[in-house]
């Protein structure tokens, strides 16, 4: 009964991963399909000497760090608010968790429309309220584009942290809090001394899984800016996809993919050794 899952995974995940590593050292483009050969490290050289490569790396770091930090902060806050039962909690948490089910790409498109500099609704409202004289080019200005995609991504990712933190919070026995009440602990002390230590393993594993996931999440950016303007919102994943769609250089894109996998491995090892393990659960 295990044969189906492992043949599917073997054919459609494992084999392609290995093939991706091989393609990275070849010259597979749309134009060379019949003349594929090994070209050594050329693809990697081309990527690393790309003038924008350092900026793309930096964007990736900013994208992950800022998104995860605020998603954790706001997700945890939300979970704390939703922990105790109140009237309409089910409906409320249902609404709060909704972004999770929505397509990141469609949400990105929707926001690019709302934020449009000429006829976007947000500029329209700001102008009607006389906050601004003329439309702000949120997404076509490199200075504001990254901030805009980050805000949307943070909003989009809060539910996942909230769901995880909420589940962890609900596993804390009430008796612990009752004992703290008897000892006269105030709300802050309870948060720092009981709640956070209890859910620490969940936070550690969720931050790891989410940072990997966010690095590999080009959907929102692709819907909003496709990595532009002037690569100001380009991260490694959008960079790779743009190489596939616009340069049709599949081997160069594979080389980016190999770099992504290596970076993820290094990151995971470093993270786990610094956070002293922490049970890995999803």
């Amino acid at each position: 009964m295990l044969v189906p899952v492992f043949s599917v995974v073997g054919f459609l995940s494992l084999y392609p991963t290995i093939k991706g590593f091989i393609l990275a050292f070849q010259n597979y483009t749309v134009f060379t399909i019949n003349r594929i050969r090994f070209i050594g490290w050329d693809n990697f050289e081309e990527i690393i000497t790309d003038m924008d490569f350092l900026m793309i790396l930096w964007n990736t770091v900013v994208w992950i760090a800022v998104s995860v930090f605020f998603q954790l902060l706001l997700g945890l806050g939300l979970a704390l608010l939703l922990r105790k039962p109140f009237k309409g909690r089910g409906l409320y948490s249902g609404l709060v968790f909704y972004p999770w089910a929505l397509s990141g790409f469609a949400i990105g498109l929707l926001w690019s429309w709302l934020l449009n500099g000429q006829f976007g609704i947000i500029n329209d409202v700001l102008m009607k309220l006389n906050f601004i004289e003329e439309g702000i080019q949120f997404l076509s200005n490199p200075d504001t584009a990254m901030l805009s995609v980050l805000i949307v991504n943070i909003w989009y990712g809060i539910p996942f942290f909230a769901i995880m933190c909420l589940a962890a919070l609900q596993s804390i026995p009430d008796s612990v809090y009752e004992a703290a009440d008897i000892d006269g602990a105030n709300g802050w002390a309870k948060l720092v001394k009981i709640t956070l230590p209890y859910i620490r393993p969940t936070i550690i594993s969720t931050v790891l899984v989410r940072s990997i996931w966010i690095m590999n999440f080009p959907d929102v950016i692709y819907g909003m800016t496709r990595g532009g303007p002037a690569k100001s919102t380009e991260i490694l994943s959008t960079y790779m996809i743009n190489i596939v769609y616009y340069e049709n250089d599949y081997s160069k894109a594979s080389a980016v993919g190999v770099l992504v996998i290596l970076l993820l491995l290094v990151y995971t090892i470093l993270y786990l050794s610094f956070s002293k393990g922490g049970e890995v659960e999803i």
Partner: protein
Amino acid sequence: MDLHHVHQTARRGVHLSHQILAFKVSFESYRYLFEFADFGKYFLNSLFVSISASFVSTIIALFSGYVLARMHFRGKTFLVIFLFFVQMIPAYLLMIPQYSMFSSFDLINRLTGIILVYIGLGAAFSTIMARGFFVRIPVSLEESALMDGCTRLKALFKVTLPLMLPGVAAIFSFSFVQNWNEIFTAALFLNSDSKMTVPVALYSFISKAGIQWNVLAAGIVVSLIPTIFVFAFAQKYIVAGLTKGSVKE
């Protein structure tokens, strides 16, 4: 009431009618979407692809999840960890090698091809989720059925599977949402007009010169409806599957 006031009121009236008119125009873009942009076709493609792939990966996951939860054998932990790592590999990293593999089988630009890709993307995580649900169903229930003379298979179908229904709902809906929303592999694989899924169609709207924002916005709204429904129906199962489904024993 002096003339000035009358004039103003009249203007307001005109303004109001403009707004009402604008509202009508927005329905117009839905009509355009389905009549001229053939969005109904893409919607059906998406439904077909997402449902088929989710169905198959749920079945696969039920078998393997059951084995990984109930049987004891050497290397089991390794297999579970292996699946855990596999499900972390994102779609866009696999799409090029898959593209090169699938072109040799003539599966590019076919819905079958993209269904296969989605089964591959979903199988590992669905299995992890299924295993989590099976682990939480007490073995003792099955054992007592076995003692009463049930065969193992009968015990599975009569006792465990009915208790597994929330798990099935969670696995299927989770995978449906993932499949419905996937864009990058679909955009690479499905390049003919009649084969596009909804996200690919939205993408083609923006890549064409001169975006019609009203039509695009209507398309986005329509594209969000199915997952909103699925989530409304399966939210509590999905949340249970995400949080408890994969916790270690």
